[in-house]
């Protein structure tokens, strides 16, 4: 039996021109979350408790696309989703379409532990959140100035984009301009509109 190990991620598909200070901020957040998980593992918390604990931290920090700092819908609102799974008995919980739950991953955990189901979505999930007494906030809490700017760029380029932390200039490299280059389709859209996350 090996010892414990942990891995975290903040999204795949990074703009090659991401400013250095953004890269540094991302590395600091990843390091902070790793250390949070490591001290929990050293205190013998179970794997399922550690993953929930670490993802809560990532949701609370606005840097990555989840919780506060989540990507915006075409209407400029936030709809979040999450899932959690415990290996030993393959128990799992998932939620979608959340607009007021501060930490979606903890509601997914409650779906796993406190409901007879494995997945709740939209109004049903919000109802369950109220019953379970989890922390609720206004949808505005999740919306950041930066993401409002990103949404504006995405609309101007008429693209659906992953959470692409790009500087305010240079969208054409991954927006409509890139669409002409690649004929490959994904679900009926040019592959390049799906700018990697």
């Amino acid at each position: 039996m090996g010892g414990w190990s942990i891995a975290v991620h903040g999204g795949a598909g990074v703009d090659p021109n991401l400013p250095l200070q953004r890269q540094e901020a991302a590395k600091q957040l990843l390091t902070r979350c790793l250390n949070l998980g490591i001290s929990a593992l050293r205190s013998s918390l179970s794997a399922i408790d550690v993953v929930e604990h670490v993802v809560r931290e990532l949701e609370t920090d606005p840097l990555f696309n989840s919780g506060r700092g989540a990507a915006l819908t075409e209407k400029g609102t936030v709809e979040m989703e999450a899932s959690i799974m415990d290996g030993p008995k393959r128990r799992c919980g998932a939620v979608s379409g959340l607009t007021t739950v501060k930490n979606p991953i903890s509601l997914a955990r409650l779906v796993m532990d406190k409901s007879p189901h494995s997945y709740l979505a939209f109004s049903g999930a919000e109802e369950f959140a109220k019953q379970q007494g989890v922390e609720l906030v206004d949808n505005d809490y999740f919306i950041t100035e930066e993401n409002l700017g990103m949404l504006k760029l995405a609309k101007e380029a008429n693209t659906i984009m992953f959470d692409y932390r790009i500087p305010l200039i240079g969208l054409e490299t991954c927006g409509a301009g890139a669409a002409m280059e690649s004929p490959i389709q994904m679900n009926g859209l040019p592959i390049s509109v799906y700018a990697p996350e």
Partner: protein
Amino acid sequence: TVGCVVVDSQGRCAAATSTGGLMNKMSGRIGDSPLIGSGTYACDLCAVSCTGEGEAIIRGTLARDVAAVMEYKGLQLQEAVDYVIKHRLDDGKAGMIAVSNKGEVAYGFNCVGMFRGCATEDGFMEVGIWE
């Protein structure tokens, strides 16, 4: 999208993934992150969390496939991650992190960069973005 995978000192694996989805997405759109077996999976053998083009991850049942090739093809964790990234995504772009019940940690991605960090009990620790 953010994610965390852990194997504790008793060999129990767990995975968690959370996201806001796509910028400018249609309201009501569901991606891979909440779908067990696509964006998130954990069993006795391993735990996996994925990120990237949700539609490609869903079609490839990416997270479950890592466990499946370990189980049925006898691949080790990093081999399984590399195999699935290479053979299950078609033209999609994605990344993933994974741990095994033997205390191994692995990650892989076929796009430009992935924000990730990993650590093991014997002192290894790495935080990276690019290759």
